């Protein structure tokens, strides 16, 4: 796995003719198996960045390279998990998880086995035949994670996946995603608003400035896992990152 982001910029032309610079010269080399969190004020281009990496949007300048090939359009190694889960409401859990395998023409028995494996990994084995509307927000997000994992990409792109959840569910899912990350050795790019979440999860935190989003600072979090939010070192780092964010907002 080799993911390289080179001088990525993105402008949006609004209908009135004004241009919005959403991202400005973002460069980043992502290491194999790394857990990266992207932090930044609202509207600084975090979603745009993930969408470009996922191949759902084209950059105005710069490029994304996955295993030395430029990314244009969907890439089997880069799978996105959307904030609103974007599950297919007419499919039950298993069928949702199987979607990516179906479109790859994997035979039904194999598909089922793989789906079962990942549904079990996210702890939803007893909900296989339930429909998304029968699940809680946290469970839906687990299904979305299983659906993404089922196609076995090298990189997971997660856009504020836990943003809509209550604090307790959020903490639980944070622990779970770390476990999944440990087991599957995926590389994860994780957008969040929460400094706490970033500090709990990340190997490196990318702090972006306000629009146009540039990289303000990259922070390596060297705390051993599992991390304790109450530890003084955690607190000190939190204070530091918060001050960075404050500055980032002013920039």
């Amino acid at each position, binding site marked *: 796995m080799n993911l390289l982001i080179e001088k990525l910029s993105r402008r949006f032309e609004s209908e009135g003719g004004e241009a919005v610079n959403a991202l400005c010269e973002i460069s980043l080399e992502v290491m194999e198996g790394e857990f990266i969190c992207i932090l930044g004020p609202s509207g600084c281009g975090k979603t745009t960045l993930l969408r470009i990496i*996922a*191949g*759902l949007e084209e950059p105005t300048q710069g490029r994304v390279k996955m295993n030395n090939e430029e990314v244009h359009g*969907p890439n*089997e190694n*880069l*799978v*996105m998990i*959307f904030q*609103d889960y*974007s599950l*297919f*409401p*007419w*499919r039950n859990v298993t069928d949702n998880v199987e*979607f*990516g395998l*179906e*479109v*790859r023409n994997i035979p039904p028995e194999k598909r089922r086995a793989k789906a079962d494996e990942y549904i079990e990994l996210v702890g939803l084995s007893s909900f296989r035949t339930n*429909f*998304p*509307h029968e699940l809680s927000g946290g469970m839906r997000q687990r299904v979305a994670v299983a*659906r*993404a994992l089922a*196609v076995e990409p090298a990189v997971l792109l997660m856009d504020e996946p836990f943003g809509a959840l209550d604090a307790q569910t959020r903490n639980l899912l944070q622990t779970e995603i770390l476990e999944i990350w440990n087991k599957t050795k995926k590389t994860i790019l994780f957008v969040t608003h929460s400094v706490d979440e970033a500090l709990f999860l990340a190997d490196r935190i990318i702090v972006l400035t306000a629009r146009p989003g540039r990289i303000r600072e990259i922070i390596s979090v060297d705390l051993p896992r599992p991390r304790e939010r109450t530890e003084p070192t955690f607190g000190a780092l939190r204070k530091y990152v918060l001050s960075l964010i404050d500055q980032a907002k002013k920039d």
Partner: protein
Amino acid sequence: MGKSICCKKTLIRIILPLIIIITWEALAYLINNEFILPKIESILLVLLTPTADILGSGGLIGNAAISITRVLIGFLVAALVAIPLGIMMGRRETVHDFFDVTIQLIRPVPPLAWVPLSLAWFKIGITSMAFLIALGAFFPILLNTMDGVKGVKRTWIEAATNLGASEWHILKKVVLPGSAPTMWTGLRVGFGIAWMCVVAAEMLPGTNSGLGYLIMYAYNWGQVQVIIAGMVIIGLIGLIFDTFFKEVERRKFSWRELDR
């Protein structure tokens, strides 16, 4: 508690039909003229012998079957054209713009206004009838399909693309199922209109079968009880089909309401 609420509901629902029937019967006896207001028992007599020949035009059932066949043909034609067109118009702005003006112009013309033209083109017969029925069913199916396709959430399509789905997969596995509930509503409304159209079309001069024909013919012979029995059957058949559509909707497409 639950049961008594249920009983109360049923009671409220049947009060008005009962009042109408009783008033009807009372008036019928008062007026005592079968050509104006036939008694309930004369209507029931027709309804309870649905296979009996009526004035040499066949029975209620036979004529109903003919009407249903006609409506199904016209409805199927409408659906086969409207669904693919609606999908394309919902998916592609250019296709939408290409057809929009024409459709907006034709849509307000009621199917009955097409009768003269349809007779000129196809003469009297199944073709002209199917044409009128199809016209009636066409627009609700088309517009609902289009709305349904437009209502397919962008994130569903993006998630599918991102998971490696081709255009064809997206159409088959996202756009179609995602718009199916709205499409189904269009089919239901379209069928209702098609059913009204068939009865109207059968009243045209030159027709010699179908429920519409039967009640028109009964009118010529002053058989008001047959007219009313025919109308009851027309209403019942419409209701049965509508219930079928609603039931499928409830079973298959409930996710639309439940998915917030």
